[in-house]
């Protein structure tokens, strides 16, 4: 039994098991807080702690699952391609929305961080939190932030967007599928897009699109953010 723990079989097996259980719980209870990703994470963290197994051991199998994120990100182009007519017809609203949303988010975290008296390092690490991890870590470095911290913030934005995005949009009267998809993708990158895919094909395609565009838009805002960080 113990021998299996040091092979990839353990990480893959425990992930599938935890996700199957958490998906079952989510389907049966329909409670928003018990979303499959979060519950599966807690199950795995619990198992690792109880049996005193370290993350590296789990990740022998875990990284085999993570590997497929690469190709999965590439094939996000497929739903986007299928919705290309919709994209072409609404190009300006989509671009304006992503620029406005990204800028509002960056202004908010810089000002809120300043008001709460956080270090410049923390504030700089917060700025790219809504972009996809590789882009976010790069921006964090450019702003003299800490890329590892940024990676945590990116994950938090992804999971919270996955959990609350749908409710939040509904609460504020955002019902148009294009607007929902772009909102989720701009805020919560690929993890949010997993939720957008569940909502519908249009939402999923728009969310996929927003990941890339929000990343590029945020990179272009870097000089402005540096200036802002220096004057306040």
């Amino acid at each position: 039994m113990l021998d299996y723990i040091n092979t990839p079989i353990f990480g893959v097996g425990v992930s599938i098991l935890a996700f199957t259980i958490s998906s079952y719980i989510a389907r049966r209870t329909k409670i928003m807080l018990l979303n499959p990703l979060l519950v599966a994470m807690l199950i795995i963290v619990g198992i690792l702690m109880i049996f005193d197994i370290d993350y590296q051991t789990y990740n022998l199998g875990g990284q085999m699952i993570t590997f497929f994120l690469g190709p999965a990100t590439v094939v996000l182009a497929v739903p986007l391609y299928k919705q290309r007519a919709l994209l072409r017809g609404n190009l300006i609203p989509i671009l304006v929305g992503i620029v406005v949303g990204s800028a509002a988010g960056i202004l908010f975290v810089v000002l809120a961080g300043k008001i709460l008296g956080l270090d410049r390092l923390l504030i700089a690490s917060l700025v790219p939190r809504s972009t996809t991890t590789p882009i976010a870590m790069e921006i964090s470095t450019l702003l003299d932030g800490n890329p590892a911290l940024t990676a945590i913030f990116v994950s938090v934005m992804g999971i919270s967007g996955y959990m609350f995005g749908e409710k939040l949009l509904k609460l504020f009267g955002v019902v148009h599928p294009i607007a929902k998809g772009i909102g989720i993708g701009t805020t919560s990158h690929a993890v949010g897009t997993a939720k957008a895919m569940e909502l519908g094909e249009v939402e999923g395609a728009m969310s996929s699109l927003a990941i890339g565009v929000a990343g590029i838009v945020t990179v272009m805002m870097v000089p402005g953010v540096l200036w802002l960080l220096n004057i306040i």
Partner: protein
Amino acid sequence: MIILLLLLLTGILPLNLVEKISDVLLTHLTFLFLPTVVGIITVAHLLGDNLIWLMLILGASLVVVMVTTGLTVQWLVRKREGKEG
């Protein structure tokens, strides 16, 4: 993603070659994030004393970005649709 999109748009790569595998991958997209999310616990100590403030800022920024983006897009899309219809 952008290269695949260009290949599809130019017709070099027909959709049916990639459609099946893309469906399989995207159906299980949430599951693929699981090991990465579990990995957060290994770096959580970096957050230190500011944990609560940071979570508050992240939570509030989620609302700010999601709502401003969503409402802006919805307003502009509807304005456009109104003009055409």
